[in-house]
């Protein structure tokens, strides 16, 4: 059981987390946040292993991981 | 474009373009906002002229590379803003002592300290009183439009060569960043005389030459200082530039330079429309300062208002210029806050009211 949370208003949609996740849990969504960015969304929450690779790569500390 | 000779150009680019058209072939500089378009333009266009753009490791390196290049007699330039210009002050002093010609551009920004990138005129004192050590002056030119940035850059190279002096173009973030249509032109003379008797070129078939600022023999340094002083006096006699607007019948004369002068122009035409007799004196050369003309004007008009984007610097030179019975008011906005035409209109009309009272 693991979970990744996105702090949407911190996300700038750089997609480094998307590339880093070995399980394709994350993807860039269609929505725009207040900063004007298309932010990341947790597309496949169930596949998350809590490995933290996404969070390690997130330049904006927008991700939190539970395990 | 309908008017074929006009080019829509950013102020910083106007300077760079003019420099190249004036024959400047070497540029040494270090990045700093809000003047980066100058080195960037130079980096793009100098190679094609056979010249060279070199990014220095610091402003100190820039000004010293400028010394090395200026000593050979070519037209050279650097540019920077507040903090970078401060770092060049030792070099400025050496330029004065060495009597070398070159052009430096200061697209000034907020200060003191790191400040920010908005426009101010807080570097007036540094420019005209000498931020470096020792008794010296630079020629300081203060353009107020894109076209004038272009024209005065060419003038700067001419004056630098005429007097063997560092010539500073004092702009600000507004002037550097503004885009306006300008008409470029090419001056007749785009290089210094290759036969000047002080050029450092290798002592082939002649006595070795020396560029220095250390004079040790008894009284030699004093002589050198008076020699410089005499040169500065010649400059004050022959090369003052200013613009006057509606001064002939003015009850109040505003004195302002650079971008503030431009904003003042808007305020003054509003004031004239409102029936207020307001004029403008815009020093174009900050050194030499138009002392004589101000003194003359002060014979007739007794009220002056100095407007600057600082807490009061040029106002001292205005006071020093005017007859003792003139009254000088000051309006200032420091730290990057730019007065609007409305601000200036209201301060002008306030002053006029006081006059009537």
């Amino acid at each position, binding site marked *: 059981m693991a979970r990744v949370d996105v702090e949407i208003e911190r996300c700038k949609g750089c997609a480094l987390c998307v*590339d880093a996740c070995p399980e394709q849990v994350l993807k860039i969504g269609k929505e725009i946040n207040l900063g004007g960015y298309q932010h990341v969304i947790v597309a496949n929450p169930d596949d998350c292993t809590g490995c933290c690779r996404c969070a390690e790569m997130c*330049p904006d500390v927008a991700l939190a*991981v539970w395990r | 474009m309908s008017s074929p000779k006009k080019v829509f150009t950013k102020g910083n680019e106007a300077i760079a373009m003019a420099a190249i058209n004036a024959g400047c072939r070497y540029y040494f500089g270090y990045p700093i906002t809000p003047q*980066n378009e100058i080195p960037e333009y130079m980096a793009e266009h100098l190679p094609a002229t056979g010249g060279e753009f070199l*990014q220095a490791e610091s402003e100190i390196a820039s000004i010293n590379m400028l010394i090395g290049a200026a000593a050979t007699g070519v037209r050279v330039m650097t540019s920077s803003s507040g903090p970078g210009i401060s770092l060049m002050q030792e070099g400025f002093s050496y330029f004065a002592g060495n009597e070398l010609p070159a052009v430096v551009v200061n697209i000034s920004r907020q200060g003191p300290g790191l400040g920010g990138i908005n426009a101010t005129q807080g570097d007036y004192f540094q420019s005209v009183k000498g931020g470096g050590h020792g008794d010296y002056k630079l020629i300081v030119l203060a353009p107020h439009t894109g076209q004038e940035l272009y024209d005065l850059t060419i003038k700067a190279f001419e004056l630098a060569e005429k007097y063997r002096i560092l010539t500073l173009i004092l702009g600000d973030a507004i002037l550097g960043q503004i885009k306006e249509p300008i008409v470029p032109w090419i001056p007749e003379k785009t290089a210094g005389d290759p036969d000047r008797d002080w050029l450092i070129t290798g002592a082939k078939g002649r006595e070795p030459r020396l560029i220095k600022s250390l004079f040790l023999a008894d009284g030699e340094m004093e002589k050198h200082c008076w020699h410089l002083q005499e040169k500065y006096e010649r400059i004050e006699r022959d090369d003052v530039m200013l613009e006057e607007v509606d001064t002939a019948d003015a009850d109040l004369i505003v004195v302002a330079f650079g971008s503030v002068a431009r904003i003042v122009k808007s305020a003054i035409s509003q004031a004239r429309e409102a029936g207020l007799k307001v004029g403008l004196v815009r020093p174009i050369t900050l050194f030499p300062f138009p002392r004589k003309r101000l003194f003359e004007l002060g014979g007739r008009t007794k009220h002056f208002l100095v407007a600057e984007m600082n807490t009061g610097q040029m106002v001292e030179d205005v006071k020093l210029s005017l007859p003792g019975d003139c009254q000088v008011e000051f309006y200032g906005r420091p730290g990057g806050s730019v007065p609007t035409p409305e601000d200036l209109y209201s301060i002008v009309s306030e002053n006029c009211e006081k006059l009537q009272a």
Partner: protein
Amino acid sequence: MKQVFKRPESMTSKPFHFCPGCHHGIVHRLVAEALDHFSLREKTIGVASVGCSVFLYDYFAVDVIESPHGRAAAVAAGTKRVLNDRIVFTYQGDGDLAAIGTAEVIHAANRGDNITIIFVNNSIYGMTGGQMAPTTLLGQRSTTSPYGRDCDRDGYPIKMTEMLAELEGPSLVSRVAVNTPGNVKKARKVIRQAFQMQVEGKGFSFVEVLSTCPTNWGMTPQAANDRIAEEMIPYFPLGTLKQKDVVDVL
């Protein structure tokens, strides 16, 4: 479930102003984690440099002094000489440290000043809009090398880490990258070691972090991240060139 990844305590909650995908954010976090690791927040003084990282103070919950461009190492030396029981670090870009600040960093290193320097090498001037840095790669275009960096005119990209490792003073001189989760982990370890050196009074520690500047490289964040492995690391090899004895901290 336990939270296994969260914002370090030495960081504030203020969102970064950095561009999307800019590695500065990762490096900030790693430094904050190192401070957390040794419980240093309350005794740390950061020295901010001039560059995209100038707003250090908004993101680190520590005392901060803003340094003039390039002079962070001298400012830090001044602070540390007075408060030698505090932890003092600088955070500097490649324009700041490898160009205008060359003399200051070399002499701080040579004196063995007991400070830590985090050197973010993104091979360009970020804040001022993409001018050539001393570390810009050969052929790389920038606004002041529009035809690509030319070694005949501009010389070779400078390797600060290699140069500093030549000196006696430093206790740790290392180059890391943060372009993959694995490299982030290694970088975390080295940055920790750097602070440990200071904690143990071993003298000057220096970590160069290869970093992206998607904005001024004219690349997407992803392409910029890829460039680290493709172009930066081959020229700027990763690894620790100098290290005094240290207990492993990971």
